[in-house]
């Protein structure tokens, strides 16, 4: 299977502080890779580097075989990102926001694309609503629509279901599973929701202090560490690193 994301020994230093200490991983086409780790472990920094928002101190990133450093615009055309920490302009209607981002990503047949996403994400009735007046669940689905407006080959998700009620959370997870199967995209999922990771991810990376301290399929990690579920594995790994090295 083709790797859509290839990360080769990337490091990121902020002055003397090493935020990411030379990590490498790949994400295959039609794969969801989980990125786990406690706060400050380097997940957001890693995602920032993949999005071209942060320049790695060293190492290389390839998206769809293109080196990020020289092909930033071409790569940004084929990836997208969702995070609860960023929002769409609040005063614009949902449709205006989707229209604006369709233009920024040079989407052909904009109306058709918005209609498709509205149907899939059940936001048709929200299109003329002011984005800032939506509930968290509605905003989340609209942000997801924005993230899919350019039909990305690679989707980066940072806590995509944080602050959502169980029903909306389940809807989003089901949608992501189906969309990934249908479009064969690669997804990098950073999440603190271990059930979500267990359900969606083929394999996971455990990060701590800027390093990958373990990796593998969720069920293999659970068996390897002799725990009942991924959350217990996460707690064990995040509380003590030396034990496993």
């Amino acid at each position, binding site marked *: 299977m083709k790797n859509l994301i290839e990360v080769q020994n990337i490091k990121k230093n*902020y002055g003397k502080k090493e935020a990411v200490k030379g990590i490498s991983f790949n994400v295959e086409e039609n794969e969801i890779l989980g990125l786990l780790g406690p706060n400050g472990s380097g997940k*957001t*920094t890693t995602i*920032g580097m993949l*999005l*071209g*928002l*942060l*320049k790695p101190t060293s190492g290389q990133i390839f998206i769809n075989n293109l080196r990020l450093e020289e092909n930033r*615009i*071409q790569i*940004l*055309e084929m*990836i*997208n*990102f969702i*995070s609860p*920490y*960023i*929002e*769409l*302009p*609040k*005063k*614009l*209607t949902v449709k*205006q926001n989707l*229209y*604006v*981002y*369709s*233009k*920024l*990503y*040079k989407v052909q047949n904009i109306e058709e694309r918005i209609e498709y996403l509205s149907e899939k994400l059940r936001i048709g009735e929200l299109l003329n609503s002011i984005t800032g007046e939506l509930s968290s669940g509605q905003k989340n689905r609209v942000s997801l629509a*924005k993230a899919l407006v350019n039909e990305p080959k690679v989707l980066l998700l940072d806590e995509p279901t944080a602050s959502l009620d169980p029903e909306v959370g389940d809807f989003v997870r089901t949608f992501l599973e189906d969309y990934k199967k249908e479009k064969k995209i690669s997804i990098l999922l950073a999440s603190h929701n271990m059930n979500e990771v267990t359900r969606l991810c083929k394999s996971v990376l455990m990060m701590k202090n800027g390093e990958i301290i373990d990796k593998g399929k969720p069920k293999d990690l659970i068996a390897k560490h002799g725990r009942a579920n991924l959350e217990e594995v996460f707690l064990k790994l995040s509380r003590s690193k030396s034990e496993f090295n």
Partner: protein
Amino acid sequence: MSLTRIYGLFLRHFYLITRSFPRILDLVYWPSIQITLWGFISNFFATHTTYYNNAVGVILTCAILYDFLFRTSIGFNMLFLEEIWSRNFTNLFIAPMRIGEILTSLVITALIRSLIGLVPAILLTSPLFGISILDLGIFLFFLFLSLYIFGITLGILVSSGLLRFGPSFENIAWSTMFLLAPFGCIYYPIETLPEIFQKIAYVLPLVYIFEEARNILINQTVNIENVYYAFMWNAFYFSLSIALFYYSFNAAKNKGTLINMGE
């Protein structure tokens, strides 16, 4: 450069302005108040001082020109700050937009914002004070163009600071114009400034623009040198601002400001 993307970013701000009546009112309100106030002051000075030689409207014309500069610069900064305040900054910088496309779009939008405020203010001057800024003739275009370039230049310089240092640089965004105004010799000739300040004023395009506006209105002559120097300094500062913006963008990528902006 992609016109589609430039248009897309323009649309984002166009929708924002047209959706909100208070926003349009805000754009029109301050220039109109400013011009009305300076109109009365202008009338008073024109009839009570010999310097203006009864050339009614010199101060008012300069006030209009300065307001255009101020609105252009602040307008550009506002567009940039708007993305930070709405936490949309990251979305914008992960879209496949070149820096040149972002700047071009903001430059066009800032012009339209300024004109929305300026046109009603200019229209007010004729019935209220019997003055037409069109008295400056064809050179009015060059003076406006020069002010527009300098306003945009200041906007880009401040936005570079926002990129490099984050939202904490916001206060500087509001104060740049006030810092430069005394050196611009907007309402008085350059000889009014102390010698050391004159040296600073001569390396800014503003002094040439306002000196020339007064020259045309009071002496009814044109000194093409003033227009030339204004454009020359503008070209220098504009190039500097673009270079600084690119530098700040790269510095922000190293420092991580882009990913934390608005959080």
